[in-house]
């Protein structure tokens, strides 16, 4: 029985394709899980989702013209940011509405381009990701992303806490809130650009938002939240790949489902430990 389980767990690792996929989701999990904590605490989940969707036309144009996806995605993000700033500056339109209008328009444009007859195959992987098709370059990018995110979050930890905790007093404490906001947004954009190639345009936000929300439910300190969020993201990514392997489901979607499933599980864990505490106290 144990041998059978061991075999079942080991089996996917014999495939080069899956080994690379495991590595890719683990690296993206570390980066997305840790960065996601600040996305959630700064209440940027909606912004992150909007940015991810708004870069679709850039990705599609890159796919059509043969440019690197990274370049297309970066251009898409830039256009989206400018369009949101422009729409938001119209007095009668609130910021919220501006984001919604611009993102829907850009995502629609991306879909329009993608569904044109001239589009080569592979659009599906832009939308839903293709962790089984990662190249060496993708892996190197994911590795670099994980390194940059961990180093940047380590260096900026104190400043991120000060601004997130009470922005109105940051200046008096010697911290420039705008610089911290910009640094965080740049990190989010870079993470989206790199992760979108493995996890897809529609699902990439799951790795930023779901593990961090789950970690928040079970952690009482920032350091614990960062570590558990990254651990949850890595575990969910690997679990999703197992599900995909044995249930023959789409890999990107299985990973997204596993990431999101961590949230009710964390909620359950918290409820159970709460009632255990109460039982002991009674």
């Amino acid at each position, binding site marked *: 029985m144990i041998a059978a389980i061991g075999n079942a767990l080991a089996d996917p690792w014999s495939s080069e394709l899956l080994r690379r996929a495991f590595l890719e989701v683990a690296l993206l999990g570390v980066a997305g899980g840790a960065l996601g904590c600040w996305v959630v*605490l700064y209440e940027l989940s909606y912004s992150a989702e909007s940015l991810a969707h708004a870069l679709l036309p850039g990705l599609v144009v890159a796919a059509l013209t043969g440019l690197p996806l990274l370049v297309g995605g970066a251009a898409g993000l830039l256009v989206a940011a400018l369009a949101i700033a422009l729409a938001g500056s119209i007095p009668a339109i609130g910021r919220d509405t501006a984001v919604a209008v611009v993102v829907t328009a850009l995502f629609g444009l991306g879909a329009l381009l993608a569904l044109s007859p001239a589009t080569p195959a592979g659009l599906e992987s832009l939308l839903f990701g293709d962790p089984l098709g990662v190249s060496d370059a993708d892996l190197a990018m994911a590795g670099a992303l994980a390194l940059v995110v961990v180093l940047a979050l*380590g*260096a*900026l*930890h*104190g*400043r991120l*806490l*000060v601004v*997130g*905790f*009470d922005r*109105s*007093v940051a*200046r*008096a*404490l*010697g*911290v420039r809130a705008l*610089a911290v906001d910009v640094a965080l947004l740049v990190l989010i954009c870079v993470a989206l650009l790199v992760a979108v190639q493995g996890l897809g345009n529609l699902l990439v936000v799951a790795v930023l938002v779901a593990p961090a929300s789950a970690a*928040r439910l079970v*952690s*009482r*300190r*920032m350091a*614990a*939240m960062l570590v558990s969020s990254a651990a949850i993201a890595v575990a969910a990514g690997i679990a999703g790949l197992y599900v995909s392997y044995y249930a023959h489901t789409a890999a990107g979607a299985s990973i997204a489902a596993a990431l999101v499933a961590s949230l009710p599980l964390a909620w359950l864990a918290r409820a159970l430990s709460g009632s255990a505490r109460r039982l002991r106290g009674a």
Partner: protein
Amino acid sequence: MRDLVVAESLSAGYGDRVVLRDVSFTARAGERIAVLGPNGGGKTTLLRVLLGEIEPLAGRLERPARCAVVPQTERSRLDFPVSALDVATMGTVGTLPWWRRPGRAQRAAARAALEAIGLADKAQATFGDLSGGQRQRVLVARALVRDAPVVLLDEPFSGLDAVSAEGLERLIAELAADGRALLVATHDVEQARRWDRVLCLNGRQVAFGAPADVLTREVLEATYGEAIVTLPGAGDEAIVPPHHHHDGHAHEHA
């Protein structure tokens, strides 16, 4: 006593809009100064000028390089996964280069500040789980970590129960006795009477001086408008501004 802050004919505001004009006062080491005034009267603007967040529009201002501030507690996030020690440590972040996060020395300084305000035993407690009075003291500790000679407190008593308020008032007296100057924005005229000097603001400086000289009916009317309330049968001693004749005024601040 040394003058730590000197303001002469100071005006302040935002862009072309002058919010506060003709402010002239001094704050000496060891003094508690009550800053009275209606909401929108310029109290917060004065604090921002003293902190160096905005430049004076006119006049002269001498202030120490470092002024510490204790903001209103309701601005801080109670849902953040941080301990009292984490919050006190935030006071050290601005002293470090951007690529360094607080280390052992900074945490030791934060621990000492928590000890100074009598909350050493709560260092590991989650900030959001503390009582309102304890949270206010932790924010005082965060301000003290930078060891600034001038400490500004923005309505620190709002929302505190009587026991916590008493504790905070004792703490403020101790901080002043250590040689700091404290400017405290408040609505409590009775409290202001017990302190060293009073600065009344209402878009301009209405009065500045010892409580006995400043806290007259005329000055309070000029500060708060006509709407002040006189408690029956008690002379000048019991004049209270309109929005302070019942407890709990945390809702006043937008």
